[in-house]
């Protein structure tokens, strides 16, 4: 599904990178430990997380992840969003919890990378 479709399904806000909305994504990794994302998420293009600090954006950058979804209403600040500039990373925020977010996307055909 596309980033736009994820946004609609999750009732999420686009915080950055709306020009990437039509990108098609398939594999998702969800974690609060960035170490785990780096270890196991290298085949994924979407990161779902409840962690909210600059290293989330850095981690996404290193792995060529194209969309970060912050759950539970977590709001990255301007400095964090600035790290996504020019990196081809879209940033979404949803009020749904982690499990619900993952479940909804799974139902719509997205899968884990491993």
């Amino acid at each position: 599904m596309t980033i736009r479709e994820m946004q609609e399904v999750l009732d999420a806000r686009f915080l950055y990178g709306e020009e990437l909305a039509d990108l098609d994504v398939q594999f998702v990794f969800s974690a609060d430990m960035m170490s785990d994302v780096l270890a196991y998420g290298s085949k994924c293009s979407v990161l779902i997380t409840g962690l909210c600090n600059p290293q989330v954006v850095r981690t996404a950058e290193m792995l060529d992840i194209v969309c970060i979804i912050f759950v539970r209403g977590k709001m990255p600040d301007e400095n964090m969003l600035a790290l996504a500039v020019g990196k081809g990373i879209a940033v979404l925020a949803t009020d749904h919890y982690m499990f619900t977010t993952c479940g909804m996307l799974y139902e719509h055909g997205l899968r884990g990378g491993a």
Partner: protein
Amino acid sequence: MSEALTFNYKIDGDDFTRAGEASSSVKNKLKQLGLDSDIIRKVAIAMYEGEINMVIHADGGSITVTVSDSDITMVLADHGPGIPDIEKAMQEGYSTARPEVRSLGFGAGMGLPNMKKYTDEMHIDTVIGQGTTITMKVHI
């Protein structure tokens, strides 16, 4: 490219929010050189883990990246506490990171194993009380 290119970085030890700047810069430079994206990703992940380690375990250090026709070499040098038992430190899940570090999303004990996994060669030189130098190579 006939001559090797070298990039140098100083890593600040007490600014977690800036950790990753050097890896980000290297990733950009490698992209500009037109290198294969899988190779760039391997370098970026390995260097980022090493850069984070320097910040959380060794109070910063320096990183030198050299790009030649055949490989990308990263040398990460710090004057931190050193690694007492390398074999143990290389095990997945082994970590001495403080709980604050874990709450920031790191300290799962996957860094060194990741660095090994994503590079073609890795060598650790360490002296207790003096520091650690990690050399990693990714073949092009």
